[in-house]
């Protein structure tokens, strides 16, 4: 039975809630069960942002995540705050601007230039969330790429479809192209 817990973290405005929703919807398209939730409360205003997704083959009872299987962190603050909530042997996907803590053992780390790719390569920081989604897909294979694309297209504003599709694929590329080339995976 598959049961995977995702925590996407960063700052407000990076579109992580939307990313969480899209990830959940993609899983839904494949007939899976999902629960998506996000942080409300003072943090939500302060600039921090957190979205959580559980994907499972069977019905999800307890809807909260304590420790997660996959942690995405787009800011140093988010990384510092949430790194301890990643399970042993969990997957960490971080923007490569973030300096990693030394105590991260038994964790699969993917440090990739998400923000940079967004602003430099695609030309807008707005799509960092899509790049992140692509990278999550590539690392975890939790949903098929078609499902993810379909979910993205149903959620993004008209006229931005191509841009977002490109970002998604860039995210996949960031993972696939660096696989084997660097050795962060286990540190």
């Amino acid at each position, binding site marked *: 039975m598959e049961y995977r817990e995702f925590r996407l973290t960063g700052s407000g405005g990076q579109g992580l809630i939307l990313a969480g929703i899209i990830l959940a919807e993609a899983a839904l398209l494949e007939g899976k069960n999902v629960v998506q939730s996000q942080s409300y409360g*003072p943090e939500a*205003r*302060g*600039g921090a942002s957190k979205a959580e997704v559980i994907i499972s083959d069977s019905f999800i009872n307890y809807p909260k995540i304590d420790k997660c299987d996959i942690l995405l962190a787009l800011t140093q603050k988010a990384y510092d705050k949430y790194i301890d909530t990643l399970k042993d042997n969990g997957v960490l996907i971080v923007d490569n601007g973030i300096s990693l803590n030394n105590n991260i053992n038994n964790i699969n780390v993917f440090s990739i230039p998400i923000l940079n790719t967004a602003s430099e390569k695609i030309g807008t920081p707005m799509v960092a969330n899509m790049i992140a989604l692509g990278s999550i897909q590539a690392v975890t294979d939790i949903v098929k790429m078609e499902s993810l694309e379909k979910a993205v297209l149903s959620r993004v504003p008209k006229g931005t479809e191509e841009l977002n599709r490109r970002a998604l694929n860039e995210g996949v590329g960031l993972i696939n192209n660096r696989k084997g080339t660097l050795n962060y995976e286990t540190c």
Partner: protein
Amino acid sequence: MVSKLIDKYYRTDRLPHIWCTGCGNGIVLRSIVKAIDNLGLNKDDICVVSGIGCSSRASGYLDFNTVHTTHGRALAFATGIKFSNPNLHVIVITGDGDCAAIGGNHLIHAARRNIDITTVVFNNNIYGMTGGQYSPATPTGDKGTTAPYGNIDYNFDLCELAKAAGATYVSRSTIYAANMIIKQVEEGIKNKGFSFIETLTICPTYYGRKNSKGNAVDMVTHLKDSAVNISAYEKLSEEEKANRIPIGELYKRNRPEYTEKYESMMKLF
């Protein structure tokens, strides 16, 4: 480190405050404190009462007697405090929603009684705390999360309302004209009676974003451009007035104050 003014009157260990980047609340709050400093009041004699909202969180940052009440009821709590101890300078900090939506009744009745409370409304034209719903101060046509197609309500002229209800000092200013806030709060505190001070401030996060008003600087610039001193405003044509808003001291009246009247009544016995 902070300035001497902030250091003297704020609970500095609680800074930075929770307000968003560019939120105008901090400007209004500093202006209030500056007015208090100018008047040389004793901190122990000041009681700041607020309701619930982003703006109403202000009370927590100030090193006075501070009471953060329930949504809309700050003036009713303040009435109990002031009436109990008339020696206190009671200042109410409230938002446009807190003061004019749920709290509208307490506003008009505090004004009617002419009780010696200085009320400063942080009018950001929106419910900030709950995420951008339109308020009784959201201009007609503007958007909020509960007015996705534009607000069909008319917004209050809060100063007119306070005046009609009986306030004896009524003024308006903006965060651009922050020196004017300082002056008005001084005058408001000095006025022995109900003082109503509307400060136009900005919520870039919700009102700004929902209504494409640009960033904080754009919004302050807009306040700068649209606010006109009352004396100048009165000389404008109706057409010119349409997109302008008068600021300054709008109304004053002399009338015995509530707690003083009660004290004289007690002297009968």
